[in-house]
């Protein structure tokens, strides 16, 4: 397979500009952020605002026999106390299935479910009022294990079949099969010389964005609500909020407040409805800010998973078949579980050509915390399992693990198990080659030991004894954009006018900037397409059409694409104006450096002169190419918009006596199609890789009998700067001709393969099987479960 670097292959489409696409101009919000002046959702303040707060269930499964708010209402400083009965509109909401009550009604299905809300003059007043609400519960046995969930006759239903929606499938939220080739039969198994079987477990990971769920709802004179909110998708929030408030959508206006990270955890609603309900009730602005503890209960997590894989290969390492079953614990409410299942099923064979496949992915309802979107979205769990299988297969066949992967890697033209052809570059083998070719870090220097270099670091746990190094590799495949027939279009409005004698482009979208740098890219696109220096980014709100979600690695592709379309439309109108006015008959016009330029005749006229006092203001929608749902029984279908690939090499030092791991280096190679902003691309890859590192060695929400045991940053650990190693990144740019500028979504792929690469390195260092993440010290020392 030959691969070439083609950064320049699309330059004929657009005009280069130092601050246009392909450059790394500084973020437009950067100065505000370093000055402490950027207004995050938790920074909202209003003169007569109240503080909202929710009462949450200490139980995971219970009947609510009564709720007595009498004393809470009387508490001085309290302005409103609301329960289920006070909801003016529809009682339920949800991203895909409207199964979640805005406030609990009659039943508690997970630890932390909100029962009542208060508004008070001070957060402490609100806390004290909540403590005065008396709730009588009748505890129910929890339904938390796979066995319990799959046997509702014995253990019951999380949602009774007779409740607000049908449940023909019991506690199953969604399931998806994928069968290709001959499937996996005894005849197929007989074709394999070597068979590897493995059972894998992935723990429940938290997005752990730093900015807590927060926002402010302000009642408006027209009876509507203005909500200032940190979210990933303004319009889908509004779609869910308005019916609960009993308001038409146009009376619920959302403006994006500063977002302190998201990573999928803001796809579902958290405090939005509660703040709006309290604002509606009190007629005053209501601010809600979760504490970190409440945040752990206030958003969905990454699905914990059990994965069973059986992989067959020939003696020379060619994959023959894979049989897999992935069980995802969806928790109490559906959230994004159906789409997560679709991803796990369709991407769960990895970036490999496997002639015969039998896959089943399932998400269950349980009394565990609800799970939904987190960076990687169903592809992360599967990647841990299929990459472990590849390493075991390599060992069984005595083939180099990278070579084995390269031997079976998909490439452009390969057919996925869903029957979908990969119709753009898929440089899986090349990414592995590149990441392997990077120089290795030096060996641990034990003669001049700096404890900060070893596992245990400043805890001063070793002088270098008992420390073993390992190296591991992994590669993954992720989809970009919403799949399975969903038209997640984006809207952009671009306005060109002359301000102070200079042409200025204004870009207005509803895209949630959550830190990824979309606002930077929008400016670059506008500059590239319109040849202007100055670009204004309008605040994101619901005055413009939907931009879809800031998730699925889709925003640069989708809303970036919409900005491109709108800017092109503005340019065409401007040039039409010029043709009309000056009678140009050139076919080689572009906008460069504030001027209309003909490739043959040179600069024709300044944009400012052509435009004069008028403004061109156009809105365009960008739709990706259509996809179709996967067939329910076979999983066949053109289900994904685009595929994206990343490979990792991890180098670890393991203190085998104490079970401590230090990741020494985490190198990545990723194809990004076209790096619109190389600095941000590398930042995305390093940040995504680090979240995968966290899942490998430390991050897990511990749940026992449905109860969350570690809802704090003291007990739920995310990587610190001491836990995180240098991360060399090799960016490959092979254009996807279907995508704007040939780009490929960047954000998620690195989160897939870093976890299995780190664990592969620990396996190499220790010789242990390690079929579970996160790997804990006791797994390495044999002293725990």
């Amino acid at each position, binding site marked *: 397979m030959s691969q070439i670097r083609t950064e320049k292959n699309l330059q004929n489409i657009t005009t280069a500009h130092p601050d246009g696409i392909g450059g*790394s101009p*500084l*973020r437009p*919000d*950067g*100065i505000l*952020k*370093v*000055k*402490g*002046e*950027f207004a*995050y959702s*938790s*920074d909202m*303040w209003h003169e007569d605002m109240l503080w909202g707060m929710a009462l949450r269930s200490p139980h995971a499964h219970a009947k609510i026999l009564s709720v007595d708010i009498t004393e809470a209402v009387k508490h001085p400083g309290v302005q409103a106390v609301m329960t289920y009965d006070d909801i003016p509109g529809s009682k339920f909401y949800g991203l895909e299935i409207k199964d979640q009550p805005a406030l609990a009604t009659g039943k508690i299905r997970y630890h932390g479910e909100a029962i009542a809300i208060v508004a008070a003059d*001070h957060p*402490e007043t609100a806390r004290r009022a909540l403590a005065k609400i008396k709730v009588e519960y009748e505890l129910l046995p929890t339904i938390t294990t796979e066995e319990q969930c799959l046997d509702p006759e014995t253990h019951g239903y999380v949602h009774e079949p007779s409740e607000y929606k049908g449940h023909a499938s019991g506690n199953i939220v969604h399931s998806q099969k994928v069968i290709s080739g001959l499937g996996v039969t005894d005849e197929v198994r007989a074709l394999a010389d070597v068979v590897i079987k493995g059972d894998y477990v992935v723990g429940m990971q938290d*997005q*752990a*964005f*730093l*900015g*807590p769920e927060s926002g402010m709802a302000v009642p408006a004179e027209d009876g509507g609500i203005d909500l200032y909110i940190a979210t990933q998708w303004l319009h889908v929030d509004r779609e869910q909020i308005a019916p609960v408030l009993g308001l038409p959508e146009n009376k619920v206006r959302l403006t994006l407040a*500063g*977002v*302190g*990270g*998201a*990573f999928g955890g803001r796809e579902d609603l958290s405090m939005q409805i509660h703040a709006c309900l309290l604002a509606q009730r009190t007629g005053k602005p209501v601010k809600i*800010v979760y*504490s*970190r503890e409440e945040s752990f209960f206030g958003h969905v997590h990454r699905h914990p998973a059990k994965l069973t894989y059986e992989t067959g290969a020939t003696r020379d390492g060619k994959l023959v078949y894979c049989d897999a079953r992935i069980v995802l614990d969806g928790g109490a409410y559906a959230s994004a579980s159906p789409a997560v299942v679709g991803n796990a099923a369709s991407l769960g064979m990895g970036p490999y050509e496997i002639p015969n496949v039998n896959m089943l992915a399932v998400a269950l309802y349980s009394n565990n915390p609800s799970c939904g979107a987190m960076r990687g979205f169903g592809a992360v769990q599967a990647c841990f399992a299929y990459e472990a299988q590849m390493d075991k297969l390599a060992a069984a066949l005595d083939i180099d693990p990278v070579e084995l992967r390269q031997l079976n890697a998909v490439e452009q033209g390969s057919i996925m198990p869903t029957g979908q052809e990969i119709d753009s570059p898929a440089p899986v083998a090349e990414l592995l080659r590149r990441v392997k070719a990077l120089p290795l870090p030096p060996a641990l220097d034990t003669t001049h030991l*700096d404890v*900060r*270099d070893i596992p245990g670091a*400043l805890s001063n746990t070793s002088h270098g004894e008992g420390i073993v190094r390992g190296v591991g590799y992994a590669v993954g495949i992720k989809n970009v954009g919403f799949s399975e027939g969903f038209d997640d279009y984006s809207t952009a409005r671009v306005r060109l006018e002359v301000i102070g004698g200079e042409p200025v482009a204004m870009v207005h979208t509803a895209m949630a900037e*959550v*830190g990824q*740098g979309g606002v930077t890219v929008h400016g670059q696109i506008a500059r590239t397409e319109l040849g202007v220096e100055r670009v204004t980014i309008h605040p994101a709100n619901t005055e413009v059409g939907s931009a879809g979600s800031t998730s699925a690695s889709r925003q640069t592709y989708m809303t970036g694409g919409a900005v491109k379309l709108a800017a092109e439309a503005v340019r065409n109108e401007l040039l039409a104006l010029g043709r009309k006015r000056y009678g140009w008959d050139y076919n080689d016009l572009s906008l460069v450096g504030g001027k209309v330029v003909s490739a043959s005749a040179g600069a024709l006229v300044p944009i400012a002169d052509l435009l004069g006092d008028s403004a061109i203001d156009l809105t365009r929608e960008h739709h990706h190419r259509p996809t179709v749902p996967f067939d329910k029984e076979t999983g066949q279908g053109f289900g994904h918009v685009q595929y994206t690939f990343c490979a990792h090499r991890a180098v670890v030092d393991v203190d085998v006596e104490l079970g401590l791991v230090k990741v020494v280096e985490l190198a990545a190679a990723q194809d990004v199609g076209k790096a619109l902003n190389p*600095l*941000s691309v*590398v*930042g995305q890859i*390093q*940040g995504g*890789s*680090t*979240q995968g590192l966290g899942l490998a060695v430390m991050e897990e929400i511990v749940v026992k009998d449905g109860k969350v045991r570690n809802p*704090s*940053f*003291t007990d739920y650990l*995310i*990587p*610190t*700067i*001491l836990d*995180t190693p*240098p*991360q060399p990144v090799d960016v490959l740019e092979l254009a996807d001709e279907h995508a704007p500028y040939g780009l490929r979504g960047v954000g998620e792929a690195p989160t897939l393969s870093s976890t299995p690469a780190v664990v592969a390195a620990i396996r190499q260092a220790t010789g242990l099987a390690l079929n579970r993440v996160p790997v804990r010290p006791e797994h390495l020392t044999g002293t725990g479960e």
Partner: protein
Amino acid sequence: MRVTFTANGREVEADDVWEGESLLFMLRERLGLPGSKNACEQGECGSCTVYLDGAPVCSCLVAAGQVQDREVRTVEGLADPETGLDDVQQAFVDAGAVQCGFCTPGLLVQSHDLLERNPQPSDNDIREALSGNLCRCTGYEKIMDAVRLASARKCSSSEVSQ
């Protein structure tokens, strides 16, 4: 209660402060200084780091009343009104160390303190000094770059002034 102290060189006064309030809450909600951030409010994430009498502290762990008659300097007080951004602030923007930016104020104060004490820190010195500041977006590589850059700029500008 009333608390009187110096915030970013200015005498300030907060009234009706509840005894259980943190310095962080008082800064954010009573004094219009929301730059210090509220990511964990239990001293684990460092996003609320401020100088208290010249030493970096987690302002979420300091009771509001403890700062009576003392000096607090927050991220809003790092930039010089005359000369603009501090080197550390500019370096975070230039190096791509800011994504969502929620950890940034705390990291800036902590990095500023590091470079005051140790103008040419080794990579391990930087990691040790910033190990109490969580960032979820960047994977820390660009933050390392930013502190190295700020160190280089501070050192070169001090050479020039000498």
